[in-house]
């Protein structure tokens, strides 16, 4: 089973295995290239020694023999190196959390907790809307009250005005003066009647 080392890939931006593969292929290419260079240099040297009786085939055999050995050792050493690097250098220990994931340590919310939090927020939004419209209604009533109070105060002022007029014309307490008036007019009527009788 392949360990994808995805968490390491999240940190490094590449998978450690790919990194090692890239190094392996590069090293292997160098080894092969160098062997070909060695072989071509030797063949060139042999061109300069016509009676050396060493054939290109022999040199190729030698190259293959040396390369085979080197390749085996190379693979052993490389897999050792890969094991150590993947373990000690290119790996993130299980108890280590990457900075971008710190939030999971601070807020390990389960689905239920998350939904509860969302529900709470939704409820708060509803409440706020209710309060806001209640506030509007209250402010509207306050406006209305202002107008009504102004009207009612106007009526009261009207009454005051009425009483002031009475007072200006000497009738402090309207009721008494009205009674007084009634009496007076009654008296006047009597006097009138009296006068009319006498005159007859």
């Amino acid at each position, binding site marked *: 089973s392949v360990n994808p080392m995805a968490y390491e890939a999240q*940190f*490094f*931006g590449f998978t450690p295995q790919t*990194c090692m593969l*890239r*190094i392996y292929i590069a*090293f292997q290419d*160098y080894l092969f290239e160098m*062997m070909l*260079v*060695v072989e071509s240099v*030797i063949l060139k*040297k*042999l061109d300069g*020694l016509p009676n*050396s009786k*060493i054939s290109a085939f022999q*040199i190729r055999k*030698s190259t293959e023999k*040396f390369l085979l*050995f*080197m390749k085996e050792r*190379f693979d052993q*050493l490389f897999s050792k*190196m890969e094991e150590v*690097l993947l373990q*000690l*250098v290119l790996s993130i*220990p*299980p*108890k*280590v*959390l990457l*900075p971008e*994931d710190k*939030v*999971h340590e601070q*807020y390990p*919310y389960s*689905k239920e907790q*998350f939904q509860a*939090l969302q529900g709470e*927020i939704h409820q*708060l*939004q509803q409440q*706020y809307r209710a*309060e806001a419209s*209640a*506030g509007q209604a*209250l402010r509207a*009533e*306050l406006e209305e*009250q*202002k107008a009504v*109070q102004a009207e*009612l*105060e106007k*009526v*009261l002022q009207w*009454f005051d005005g009425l009483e002031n007029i009475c007072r200006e014309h000497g009738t402090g307490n309207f009721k008494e003066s009205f009674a007084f008036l009634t009496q007076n007019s009654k008296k006047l009527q009597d006097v009138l009647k009296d006068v009319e009788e006498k005159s007859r």
Partner: protein
Amino acid sequence: GRAQVFAAVVDTFLEKLVAAGSYQRFANCYRCFYKLQPEVTRSIYDQFISQLQTSVKEEIQEVKDEGNLDMLFNSLDKIVEEAKNQEEPAWRPSGVPEEDVRSAVVPYLLKHRSYLQKVLKEKEEENQKAAESVLAGRKRIAELQQLIQARKQAWQ
């Protein structure tokens, strides 16, 4: 640190590889040529080894530059150092993105919640005051109406 370990491991690999491909081994494989030209064989071998080492070192440097490995190794060392007191295995992506993204949003939802709680409280206090003045207003109006009623009655 990781950078030092990386360099040390690569150097060890190279040393062992060179040790494996010893001159004896090389001369043994190219025995016919070695007998003919021992000095040339030696110098070819030396060049082979030094070129191989140079190429390997250059490749490693290239990989480190490309992957910005030194910086990454140092920052990983720091991250590991900070976590040294951790006991439990740390969180890892669950493989369900919706789940994993939740925690990222939580701190902001909590801030949002406390903001809403704050403004709701302000609104409630504001409405409380408005309600009191509405009640006072209603009371005032009732008084005025009674006053008017009384005056009217008096006149009547």
